[in-house]
């Protein structure tokens, strides 16, 4: 009855490989990690809205869908394989067998149903809970190891949202335990099924875990304990790694030189974000004659940017050449080689061509433009990138009026009619996600939050064509068709030069090689909550 079967190649081998040979007797010491934020620091998955969940909830909770550990993106999780039903209106999730919660209860399909329903509940403030409520019609337990999720309409990308490679909504909670002890006790003494058991959470200070003793499918920890500290100031975090008070600390590119000088190890996570700039409201009636409404001008502005200089000098060499908007090397339904080549050629530095395009568009002497510079929390270097971009634009004769905004204040600007941003450019970011189309929805659909091509009231032919194409992408059940439509979508956005990648950023970690052995990160996932269990002690795998 199933028309398409998405059995992940090499699944069994991957899962087996993930089993570590470590046993309780081999687990020693405490792995101490210093982070800039612990978010809401709640052990209840439905109360955490943002990315820190992947730091401090991931150790204890497994997710329905996991990671491709080597390449990034999606891979097996508690679900070993997942399939779209023949009619495209529901998804089957087949669970691994023999999994247990930390209290010894078996992990079954009933827990999955309970977890998804709890995540969609009124109480939930998980960031994508709203999308789940909109997209899920009902959930059925087929048997102890199979769950069927009925969606509202065809949702070909539905499973992606249940992986921590994308969001947190796939985290699983123990039905029997919560129902027997109550929510308050669950929050105080959470039980999960991950490779680490909860020990203690001191608000504003730290969260501590203890390793599970037996083999775990994600990897059996080599350390006995894991302590995640909240240390907001970066200088202090680096100092802690230098003194050995912490083994690992999150840093920004500004600390790279110091880390190298102190003989610490710099670990980077590729493909965690793109720094981009985008043009707001150029489709609006009042801005149709604006220089920025001309695609030649927008392309010229991209050609004016020397991205290699930004990578070398702003990012200290620790950034990559970008692919198209919101597209990374682990993207699904995407011709990676083609679009990497596109990035290298289309995003080149060519100021002469830029000036020629400006002249062709009728602006040989440049023009005035407004540029809102901002940086998301955790990416302060975006401000420096924005300044560099404005400088490059000045060099081809564009007079840039740059204003700097704190992120919270900036987000107010693009709500509603976007009056103060329409006809202007701004910095922005896209997080590293394997399914680009979700980000394209927010950016370009007329009902999206940014709606750069048009809004629900003012949607020209181009805007309507994009909306139609977008719908085709998200409902294409055939893999080949979906890949082709995705390619068309990427082309349409890339050729519009409306939202343009500047660099592909990384996650940066300072590591004390005497405290932890050499480890690999998961491409695209800055947070290390799914990596701690595979980190060796220094004597097990020296640097």
């Amino acid at each position, binding site marked *: 009855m199933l028309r398409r079967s998405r059995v992940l190649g090499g699944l069994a081998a991957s899962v087996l490989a993930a089993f570590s040979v470590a046993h309780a007797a081999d687990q020693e010491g405490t792995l101490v990690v210093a982070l800039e934020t612990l978010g809401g620091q709640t052990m209840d998955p439905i109360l955490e809205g943002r990315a820190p969940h992947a730091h401090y909830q991931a150790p204890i909770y497994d997710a329905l869908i996991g990671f491709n550990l080597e390449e990034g993106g999606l891979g097996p999780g508690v679900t070993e394989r997942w399939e779209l039903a023949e009619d495209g209106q529901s998804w089957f999730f087949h669970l691994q067998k023999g999994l247990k919660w930390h209290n010894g209860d078996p992990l079954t399909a009933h827990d999955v149903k309970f977890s998804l329903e709890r995540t969609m509940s009124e109480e939930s403030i998980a960031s994508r809970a709203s999308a789940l409520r909109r997209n899920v019609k009902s959930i059925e337990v087929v048997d102890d190891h199979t769950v069927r999720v009925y969606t509202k309409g065809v949702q070909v990308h539905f499973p992606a949202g249940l992986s921590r490679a994308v969001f947190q909504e796939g985290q699983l909670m123990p039905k029997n335990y919560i129902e027997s002890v109550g929510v308050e006790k669950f929050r105080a003494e959470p039980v999960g099924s991950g490779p680490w058991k909860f020990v203690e959470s001191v608000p504003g*200070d730290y969260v501590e875990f203890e390793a599970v003793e037996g083999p775990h499918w994600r990897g059996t920890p080599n350390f006995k304990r894991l302590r995640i500290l909240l240390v907001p100031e970066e200088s202090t975090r680096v100092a802690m790694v230098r003194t050995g008070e912490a083994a690992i600390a999150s840093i920004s590119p500004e600390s790279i030189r110091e880390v190298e000088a102190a003989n610490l190890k710099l670990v980077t996570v590729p493909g965690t974000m793109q720094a981009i700039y985008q043009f707001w409201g150029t489709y609006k009636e009042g801005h149709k004659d604006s220089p920025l409404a001309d695609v030649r001008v927008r392309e010229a502005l991209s050609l004016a940017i020397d991205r290699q200089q930004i990578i070398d000098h702003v990012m200290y060499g620790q950034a990559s050449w970008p692919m198209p908007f919101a597209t990374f090397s682990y993207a699904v339904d995407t011709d990676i080689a083609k679009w990497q080549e596109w990035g290298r050629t289309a995003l080149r530095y060519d100021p002469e061509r830029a000036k020629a395009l400006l002249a062709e568009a009728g602006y040989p002497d440049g023009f005035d433009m407004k540029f809102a510079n901002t940086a998301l929390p955790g990416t302060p270097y975006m401000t420096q990138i924005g300044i560099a971009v404005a400088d490059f634009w000045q060099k081809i004769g564009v007079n840039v009026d740059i204003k700097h905004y704190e992120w919270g204040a900036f987000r107010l600007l693009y709500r509603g009619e976007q009056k103060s941003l329409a006809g202007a450019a701004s910095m922005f970011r*896209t997080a590293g996600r394997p399914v680009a189309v979700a980000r394209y929805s927010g950016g370009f659909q007329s009902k999206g939050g940014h709606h750069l091509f048009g809004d629900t009231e003012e949607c020209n032919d181009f805007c309507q064509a994009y909306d139609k194409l977008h719908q085709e992408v998200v409902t294409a059940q055939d893999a080949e068709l979906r890949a082709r439509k995705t390619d068309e979508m990427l082309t349409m956005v890339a050729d519009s030069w409306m939202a343009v990648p500047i660099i592909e950023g990384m996650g940066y970690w300072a590591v004390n090689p005497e405290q932890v052995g050499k480890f690999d990160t998961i491409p695209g996932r800055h947070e290390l909550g799914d990596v701690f269990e595979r980190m060796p002690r220094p004597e097990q795998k020296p640097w």
Partner: protein
Amino acid sequence: MQRYILQRLVQGVILLAVVTSIVFFVGRMTGNPVDMMLPEDATEEDRQDMIVRLKLEGTVMDQFGVFIVDAVQGDLGTSIRYRQPATDIFFSRLPNTLLMIPPAMILAIVMAVPLGVISALRRGGIIDRISATIAVLGISTPNFWLGIVLIYLFSVTLGWLPSSRMGGPLNYIMPTITLGTFLVAGFMRLIRSSMLETLDSEFVKLARIKGVSETAVIWKHCLRNALIPVLSLWGVFMGGLVTGAIVTETVFAWPGIGRLTYEAVIFRDYPLLQAVIIMDAIFILFINLLVDILYAYVDPRIRFE
């Protein structure tokens, strides 16, 4: 005296109401928690849904009405980020900050009183010049920078002290110095100038004529009078300590109310921000009331007025 205290209490309540209103409205002008909690590509539908979940519907005036009604009943709301009563979070962090403030005050008294007195007695001398230098440095050095320098010197380079976080007595040294330095500088200069003025007063001359020992003149008669203006400024300095704790606690990863304030601002956690500032305001108003009462006792002129 009772009338005086009552008058100050009424003034405090009015001030608190003004502070509360300002915090409520200004906080909402700078952004909102919904935007901080949703991913950057969230749709308007997602946003509206989150507004409902967080109970942020209605106009700002509607929300203000609800807030005031709840606040007078002692309910300052539920933290949007932590999903717990804001006052509970405040009181869970308060002890950590209170552990840091007394050492800073003690440091200030131990250093500022002798240096201030000696500077006044040896005006223009080497100690006066050194203390003037310390004062200028103490007031002009950002405590953020001072904290980082101390960490690099005593933790990273010398390895003598833990770099941050709460713990044993050694953990208190650098945060105390960072938080207390501006107090030392301020108190010291104030005591010096106050001492100079007192030393020149008639009652001091009379005491000396009567044959009171120089030690008693300086440390008993002069210092006691010189401390009156210091006492009056103590309330102001306590406010400085609370705001200084924001920076100190951030640098030293100290889970107190200073850092809680910082987190509430960054994440636009209105209920938590309101609770923290209102509680801080109550604390500072209380300290100032205490100072006023003490001042009235110490200075008979105030009492008799």
